[in-house]
């Protein structure tokens, strides 16, 4: 049925992004990004700004390139040999892909939270302390203790784990693990937090907690979140970007996207007309 639908199978080769992809107070700005896996092009000429203290949600069907785009934002795709990235990525004024840009330093500024909660098989304390230790952020044990506590407090996990900081991080529930991962990320003191489907492995209550946390974090951090749940995008983000087959179809205020999207592909996706 969908294949025959003129609306959905329409030619998108010459498509340009509708809506408002740019921001006046851009924390990160990506321009004309093309990403290739070997010969296959995964991202076609995408330009997008993430504003300071803004939550931008990226939605789209599977394989639309949203996760790839997100991972390019802190060079996580460097580890993939066949991945080739073109275009301009800037964190404020700094070129992320500049040869002199150190990846380690970049990732201290742009943290990432993954789909599956992936705490290290270490204690809760060590999980949070790992980043600061690696980057040498704490000069003393007291310093480190303080960073760990603040991060856990900010991640809303402190009260649940303060009595068992030495317990294994992997022993927590899924939602707690994911908040631990967020605490671990913010312990490094990043400016931007990237989230790659952070709630897809969690139950609704844990999801609600994470979403609440995202809202709080957005006061101090700039957040880009990839999600498969449109409701989640609607709940947590200020702007929503819709990706389709490696293209950025539409970027608009979340309210607009979910009540009156500009592009019919966006409309078709968020109303569940194709998957």
């Amino acid at each position: 049925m969908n294949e025959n639908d003129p609306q959905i199978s329409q030619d998108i080769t010459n498509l340009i992004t509708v809506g408002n992809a740019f921001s006046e107070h851009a924390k990160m700005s990506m321009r004309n990004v093309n990403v290739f896996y070997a010969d296959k092009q995964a991202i076609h000429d995408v330009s997008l700004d993430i504003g300071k203290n803004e939550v931008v949600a990226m939605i789209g069907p599977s394989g639309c390139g949203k996760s790839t785009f997100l991972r390019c934002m802190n060079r996580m795709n460097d580890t993939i040999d066949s991945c080739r990235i073109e275009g301009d990525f800037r964190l404020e004024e700094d070129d992320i892909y500049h040869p002199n840009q150190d990846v380690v330093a970049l990732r201290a500024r742009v943290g990432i939270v993954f789909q599956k909660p992936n705490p290290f098989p270490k204690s809760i304390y060590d999980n949070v302390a790992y980043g600061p230790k690696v980057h040498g952020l704490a000069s003393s044990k007291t310093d480190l203790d303080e960073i760990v506590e603040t991060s856990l407090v900010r991640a809303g996990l402190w009260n649940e784990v303060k009595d068992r900081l030495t317990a294994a991080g992997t022993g927590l529930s899924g939602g707690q693990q994911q908040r631990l991962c967020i605490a671990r990320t913010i312990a490094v003191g990043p400016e931007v937090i990237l989230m790659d489907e952070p709630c897809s492995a969690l139950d609704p209550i844990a999801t609600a907690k994470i979403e609440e946390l995202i809202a709080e974090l957005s006061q101090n951090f700039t957040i880009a979140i990839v999600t498969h749940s449109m409701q989640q995008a609607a709940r947590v983000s200020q702007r929503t970007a819709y990706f389709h087959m490696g293209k950025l179809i539409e970027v608009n205020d979340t309210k607009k996207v979910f009540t009156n999207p500009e592009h019919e592909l966006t409309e078709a996706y968020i109303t569940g007309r194709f998957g």
Partner: protein
Amino acid sequence: MAQKEYTVDNTNLDKHISQSFNEELETIKNQVLAMGEVVEQQIADAVESIVNVDKELAKKVVAIEDDVNVREVRLDELCVEVLACRQPAAGDLRMILSATNIIRDLEHIGDEAEKVAKMSLTLAKKGAAPGGYEEVRHMGELVHTMLNSVLDAFNRLDVTQALAVAKADKKVDREFKSAMRVIVTYMMEDPRSIKRAMNIITALRALERMGNHSRSIAEHIIYLVKGLDVRHTSIKEIASKLGQ
């Protein structure tokens, strides 16, 4: 009452992955149209009952009002169900929101039709008004056409036609004012007829309200199709927003 089968292919309501969601939306749309048809008939019958002093017809209009109320409640339930279970977004969300608002307007139109029918009964009992029957017939036709047209616009999601209906409300208002002037003249001529004239004025006022509600429906259709909120906006502004 024979229900007409409405097709909804032009709205893409049937393009969801979830077949049952398609069906729910179609049901809502068809039910709204069916309710509209009942209300349409109410208007026609109410007006006719005044013009022809037909007590039976007036009673029938009053009786049908219960049916309209039941339909309103049932449709509301359906809309709440869809909102709760499907969390519709964008076009679907606007569809449900418009539907609930249109239902409300239709119900109000039904109420007004009942009012007209009741006036018809009063007039039949207390004696005919000094005049204004022709105006009632004329306005009744206008309002009936408006409702018919706006329901058609809803069925086809036709913004142009909805805009035309919104414009037509002006005409009803003008008709109402001129009818008032005529009746006021009668009343001045014969103050004893004031009591009976008041009845016909109530009927005319009800018809004028129906016009307003029809315009409201038209505005909801514009919101449904274009996502533009055009309430409390002049026709000119609406037209410019729609680029027409």
